[in-house]
């Protein structure tokens, strides 16, 4: 069963998290996991991250960057064994009232003229982690994080060589500073999931 979880946090962070928890619950809902081809993908139809402050910024013609990360942890719920970071550049066309999403590495890399729901769906469709090498009958945890990032955060995370995992871990462990932060996790076993053919690049 999916549920919200907090990583190692200080007292102040617990307090903030406590205050923010109802918001997160309200925004997130439950997490299902799809097993497409060789990849795992969180399925969150109720997650609407193009909203609130992010949407206000988009309507001011800014680019809003969303950073996501999937972490697979061993059954001890402590030891991570796989990270899959992703970033989405979202902008809002102030003349056409539609969104553009750019996902480095995706095919196509950019999509134009999307509604908010289509933009969110395309982003989530590209949040995947490889399941290759994961034993089908072994329990593990899948954790999903999503946050907005501003350019000064991006400077420490993204470089010419791509996303820095250590920068990303540091980023997600930081106090969200008023920004929404979605974090969900679920205990899994590949053998329990229904495997479907790959559906990337729709």
């Amino acid at each position: 069963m999916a549920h919200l979880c907090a990583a190692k946090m200080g007292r102040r962070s617990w307090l903030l998290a406590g205050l923010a928890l109802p918001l997160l619950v309200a925004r997130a809902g439950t997490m299902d996991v799809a097993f497409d081809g060789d990849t795992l993908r969180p399925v969150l139809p109720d997650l609407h991250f193009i909203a609130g402050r992010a949407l206000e910024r988009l309507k001011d013609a800014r680019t809003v960057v969303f950073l996501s990360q999937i972490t697979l942890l061993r059954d001890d719920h402590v030891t991570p064994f796989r990270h899959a970071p992703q970033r989405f550049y979202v902008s809002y066309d102030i003349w056409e009232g539609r969104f553009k999403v750019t996902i480095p590495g995706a095919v196509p890399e950019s999509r134009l003229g999307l509604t908010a729901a289509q933009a969110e769906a395309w982003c989530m469709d590209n949040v995947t982690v490889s399941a290759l090498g994961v034993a089908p009958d072994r329990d593990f945890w899948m954790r999903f994080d999503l946050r907005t990032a501003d350019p000064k955060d991006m400077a420490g995370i993204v470089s010419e060589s791509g996303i820095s995992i250590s920068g990303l871990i540091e980023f997600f462990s930081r106090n969200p500073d008023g920004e929404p932060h979605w974090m969900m996790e679920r205990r899994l076993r590949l053998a329990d999931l229904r495997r479907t053919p790959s559906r990337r690049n729709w």
Partner: protein
Amino acid sequence: MKYVCFSLLLVGGLLATGTQDSETNVNSRYTVENVVVSGNGWSTSPAVDRDHKISSGLRKEIAALVGEKLNPARLDDLARRLRKELHARTVEHHVLRGKSPEYVQVVFQVEVPPTRFDASVPKFLYQGEQGWSGAFEGTATVNNNGFTAGLVSDGDELVERYTGVVARYESEPLLDQRARLRFEYASYHELWNSSTVAAAGASQLYRSRDEFQPVLSVQVARPLEVSFGASFESLGQQMPGAQPLAADAFVAGARYRQEMEGSSDQALEADYDLRAGSHALGSDYAYSRHRWGFRYRLTHGKHELVDDGWGGVLLGQAPLFERFVLGNSTSLRGWNKFDLDPLGGNRVVHNTVEYHYGIFQIFCDSGAIWDSGQAAVARASVGAGLRQGIFSLALAFPLRDGRMDPVFMMGMNY
């Protein structure tokens, strides 16, 4: 070394994100139609207006957005610089649809804190002949009303060294942002140079000077501002027990400032000031003091050429603080004002030509100061030094036969 590496990483990261922003933002295909900077009760369009709240350099950069493709990352940078320059609490930028399709308008919304406190040094100077002069002020701004209090000791500007306190109130903009009301109070203790004491009659010197000056300034048209008001001065006499003398005057002024921007920037300023002491105000002095000035500045890259000319006429019987002075840190630099005229003059004409290249400056001052009925003697000086922003350091040489006694000056805002 670690700082170099860190900087490279940071710059690399910023470049990466900057490039991405222009590539990823769907609005970067639209052209900027207009840019507006607006704050609490004011707004300006830097491409059209020459609002002096914003520095020339930043204004030009904002104006350059017009006609270009929208670059949201650039807007973030300009908002940050506006916030710093205007001491604003926040500067948000909003992008709106333009009047024509494919065009957008940019609005920088400036939010200034309702109350803030600034400390400033309006003048700080060491001049080889006159010694130190300086002023220090603190200003509290409450809902756009400015309350200032400060200390000053100035042996440079007038024939007297005046030392004391100043207090000033400047109202929030009135009459649709076109007018401001100002009340200024000052109380000075006076020190006189021995040559002034020797040349003056006993009744001319005063021990203290208290001043109250209400003035209304009105912007008639964008480059032209006029001001009028009154100045009430009480001059405490040297003789113990003597009644103070009143030097009350009507004051009026006009200022014109025009800037022309192109491959070379030009600025033209002209001003006229009148102070008329009148028995109608209860003054013991009846006089009129006229001063007019003209200033032209041409800037091309690092080169800057400035010509600053001014003159004045004083008619009637006026107190010493109204008399003109040459031979200080701004006029006939290198000359000693007490050698030229220990009481100041009632006629003056002066011109300065300055050339700046980067931080280097050279200048040539010429002028004459005399009293009506006397022959005017033209004098000149040259000098060189360094100037960076408000800081300046210079060595000035009076041009005269036989001797060369340079005068050293350094300071800020003089």
